[in-house]
């Protein structure tokens, strides 16, 4: 009914490819870490992403998404990758590194130079825009 489509042409699918973290999201929720998901993983993903999930659960998964090298810490290189994905490489490297330093300075509570899960959670739970 209305304008709903169920079959997408490749061009239309391309138009939806804008989420800068799409690859990471798929990797985090997948079984083998490669982006392949079973139905359970798929459901898991949507359950976490839904509006009704509690914030700490979302924070936990957000942490995993931003942790590009899967070492349970968000280190500087992870942050740099994040910034570049967000701005599509528009910022100069000095700006990028400045931003990353600021982030670590602001959020790192235990002062180990990288963000652990607690640091991240502590910071993100307060954010008003965290959906």
């Amino acid at each position, binding site marked *: 009914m209305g304008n709903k489509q169920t079959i997408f042409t490749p061009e239309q699918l391309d138009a939806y490819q804008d989420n800068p973290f799409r690859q990471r999201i798929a990797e985090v929720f997948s079984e083998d870490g490669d982006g392949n998901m079973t139905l359970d993983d798929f459901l898991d993903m949507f359950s976490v992403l839904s509006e009704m999930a509690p914030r700490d659960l979302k924070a936990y998964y957000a942490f995993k998404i*931003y942790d590009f090298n899967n070492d349970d810490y968000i280190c500087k290189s992870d942050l740099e990758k994040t910034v570049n994905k967000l701005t599509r490489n528009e910022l100069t490297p000095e700006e990028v590194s400045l931003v990353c330093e*600021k982030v670590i300075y602001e959020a790192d509570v235990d002062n180990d130079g990288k963000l652990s899960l607690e640091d991240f959670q502590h910071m993100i739970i307060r954010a008003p825009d965290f959906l």
Partner: protein
Amino acid sequence: MDVMHIKVFFFLLYICMTPVSKYGSDVDNEEGSAAENEENVKGTAGKRATPRTRRGHARGRARRGGEEDEDDEDGTRRAGHRRHRNRRGQGRAAGKEGSDSDGDPTKARKNEANQKSKEGDEEEDEKGGKSGKGKKEKKQDKKPDKKGKKEKANKKKKDKKKSGSGSDSDSEEEPITEEELAKLKEEVEEKKKLIATLRNKPWKMKKKLSVLKEAQLFVEKFEGALGKGKGKKFYAYKVMMTKKWMKFQRDFENFKTACIPWEMKIKEIESHFGSSVASYFIFLRWMYGINMILFGLTFGLVMVPEALMGKPYGSLPRKTVPRAEEASAMNFATLWDFSGFAQYSVLFYGYYNNQRTIGWLKFRMPLSYFLVGVGTIGYSFMIVIRTMARNANEEGGGDDTSFNFSWKMFTSWDYLIGNPETADNKFASITTSFKEAIVEEQESRKEENIHLTRFLRVLANFLALCTLAGSGYLIFFVVRRSQKFALEGLENYGWWERNEVNMVMSLLGMFCPTLFDVISSLENYHPRIALRWQLGRIFALFLGNLYTFIIALMDEINLKLEEEKIVKYNMSIWEANLYNGTIPENSTAPPIQVDPADVPRGPCWETMVGQEFVRLTVSDTMTTYITILIGDFLRAVFVRFFNYCWCWDLEYGFPSYSEFDISGNVLGLIFNQGMIWMGSFYAPCLPAINVFRLHTSMYLQCWAVMCCNVPQERVFKASRSNNFYMAMLLFILFLSTLPAVYTIVSIPPSFDCGPFSGKTRMFEVISETLEHDFPSWFGKVFGYASNPGLILPFILLMVLSIYYLNATSKSYKEANLELKKKLQSVRNRELLKK
């Protein structure tokens, strides 16, 4: 509240539809089959209860009465097997169904041995190994559930999941002691809590599912046991009803979600324009819901009874078009103006008769009219405050700037965007915001600019005040002029003069916000703060307009009240003239039949007020639609098609496509609602008109947004603005009720029209009802209760409790801050230890 009642009603219906018998047989079978279907169809769905047949349990246990030396897992698996067999018969993976329910221990044990060997530690392996069944079944098998009565001691269990004790419901061989019962209860509660919070745990789905199954099995097994000896049947019944209720709740939630109107449209807009634009449409939908309920109240309780049971048109003078106006009563122009036939109908106050009860139902019309008026306001208050409270709960914390960069990095992307153009804009805005933040971080503040900025801001505020004052005076002037016109008779003037007030108000509403926008560019604020200032100014503008309008109306009301006295005098003369021709005045004679249209009518200020509001709403609607059509649509057409033959690039240069003005539209919506609240007491048709208006508005604006607008350049999230709009709505609601309440309480109703005619004040209908319709003691109680000596202390008490609650909330906030600080210092201390 209302939702709960609806839910309970549907739940009862639901219960009636599913067969209910005593707990144990049918319920389990039916739930079993239901669970089967669900499992087969919906796969892994989380909290669904997959019960085991109690009889299977019981049989298993009874049969194994003699086999004392089996360990936990074996017994479980056997019971599991038996259960499966009892329920499903064939179709099992080989090796499991070997166990015979009539008790063949050796064979069973062999099967279990096979079973054990096949099983690895990982659930995945087990799942992969079996065939033909859903995962759930396999997990049931693996579940190390409680076994027989031998397993009394919980203390022996290391693993929580294996814990459990007490006998089962059927075996009477060993009594349970009180403490064990209590402990059991505790564990069951724990399991239940685990089930309830399972969704929130960050585990993988498989782990969650296995834990869920275990916990459910455990709970189900022991719920019956707990109830043993203590009204077991009732307990079992209670448990079953709870399960049914939960299942029903989930189905109801699904049904409710499917019923939400316009969901797809809004999602599409959200993906194209971001969540802030979509929030406007969600707000519109919410208003539509409120208006539907108001419409239901006024239509069902006021308009329909009068239409069905009241005296028909033409029977009373107040219900008939006067002779003088009859000629033009059916013209479209008159109807559009809401006079003529529209005026003398259920749509307006004046039509209603002041008879105390009407029809065979003895429906108390005046009372219902009054109560519906009060009820609409009360309901609106309640629902606005409830929504505000809910929104306030979701927002946490304050406006911290301590995590500026981190938040920019991690929360700036709007995941609801689904359109490349918007995404491009979003990327650009994120980049810009990062650059701005960096620059701000690096640059030191230049001291000289502060004075300039301050001066500019003061100038801007001064200009804004001037604009506001100017618009207020303009409206006042126009209203005065229209009063002059009315005195001289409206027929001498053209369309513009007649509708001058409405047109001026609408035009002001269109142009002043843009003016404010221009002024605010002087101020150089952060966009969010600038938006707030803008909203505040537009709000003040609309408010000023509305109140000037009301004051003008009050003038007219007073005029009409003066007129009433004159008309009363004239009417008595007219009556005397009627009688003069036939019978001398002294004798009692039957009243002469006069056609109601010929009776001279008193002025009806309430209908006049209602008419004004209706006209204002209609003209406001028309202005909005025309603005959309011209401002957005024609502009887009112009830019698109004239771009080829124009000197400069129209799309990037001056006109370009318009952006969706969220704040303007939201304010327009809020003020429209304010007018409805003000006018609905005098014109019961207003909510109906508004429902129609919102409905068409939704479609028109959805189409216009998708067709003619481009995503905004600064795409920002809608997160905090919701409560701001609600606060404005609440404020407007409060302001709207003031005029209505004032008129109810202090102005006498017209003597010739409406349900309160003949009374000195409108609220007297309440006291009249108390006298006639309630038993006398009620009236006495009410009389005592409305004694000022009682009410004043009550008000004092309420004020004091507000103060107290305010103080406690402040103290909680401070305690919160203290705890945060402590947390910080604890962390620092740990840091130092390192």
